[in-house]
């Protein structure tokens, strides 16, 4: 059964609220800003996402730039990425790929961490979705602190 998908955009990447944490938090929101999805990512992936948000083009292709270049050269188009599931605090995502000749019926799906999926989506201007189920499982206590930070001046700064 196809689940309902909600389109999200990346609002920013910020340091984790826990001091000395190695993690960063990617904040995604839907268009109406009624749903907010925080996703914890590693430093490398956080950096990869931030560079794409800031449209920084590094002198040499970084890992996610390479994935984009690989898929582009092979004529594979990333049609969307979807945050599909959350289990034991781990988020799961799928990347949907389409070859030039193929129709929508023969889309390829690849399992990925949301951090990689988002870093890739931003580099290929592909839409990012989350399933309604994932949003339904979000605990408000996990989201509210980030909503507060979204409104604060601290947000948007580089780490």
């Amino acid at each position: 059964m196809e689940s309902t998908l909600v389109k999200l955009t990346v609002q920013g990447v910020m340091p984790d609220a826990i001091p000395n944490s190695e993690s960063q938090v990617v904040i995604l929101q839907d268009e109406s800003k009624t749903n907010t999805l925080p996703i914890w990512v590693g430093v490398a992936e956080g950096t990869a996402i931030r560079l794409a948000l800031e449209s920084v083009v590094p002198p040499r292709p970084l890992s996610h730039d390479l994935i984009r270049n690989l898929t582009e050269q092979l004529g594979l188009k990333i049609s969307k990425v979807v945050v599909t599931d959350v289990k034991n605090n781990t988020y799961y995502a799928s990347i949907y790929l389409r070859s030039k000749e193929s129709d929508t019926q023969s889309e390829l799906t690849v399992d990925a961490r949301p951090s990689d999926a988002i870093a890739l989506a931003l580099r290929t201007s592909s839409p990012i979705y989350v399933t309604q189920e994932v949003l339904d499982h979000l605990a408000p206590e996990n989201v509210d602190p980030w909503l507060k930070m979204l409104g604060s001046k601290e947000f948007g700064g580089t780490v």
Partner: protein
Amino acid sequence: MLTQMHIRGLMFDPYTNAYIVILRDESNTEMLPIWVGKPEASAISFAMEGITTPRPMTHDLMKVILDTAEAKVISVVVTDLKDNTYYAKIHLSYEDSEYSIDARPSDAIALAMRSKAPVFVNDNVIRKNNSEDMDRWLENLKPEDFGKYDA
């Protein structure tokens, strides 16, 4: 001319705060150190030690995308050294065509190890590889560093 090389070690360089991947040819006569960043070093060390993570890391994803599309990594080649930057190419076959894609050696090596593809180095690069650089870090190597990750 290309020389096939194997990944023989990974170590931390305290001078540059970076990691060094050590490539050697079959006969151990040629050696090439390549400086890489921390995430790429861990991607390479996972492959060296055969560690699989519960979730696919970035280079695992790279491999899975290629596998899913039925594209095959034929080889990777460290092609050039300019202003202390190494350049590499990933050679792929896909739907009866061959492709070569520009990459950093760290990404290319991390992918080659996961795809069981051979790694080659252009002889120009081996020659250009500055002997002063080599001496500097070789002096600081302890024998135990060297064998540590020997494959």
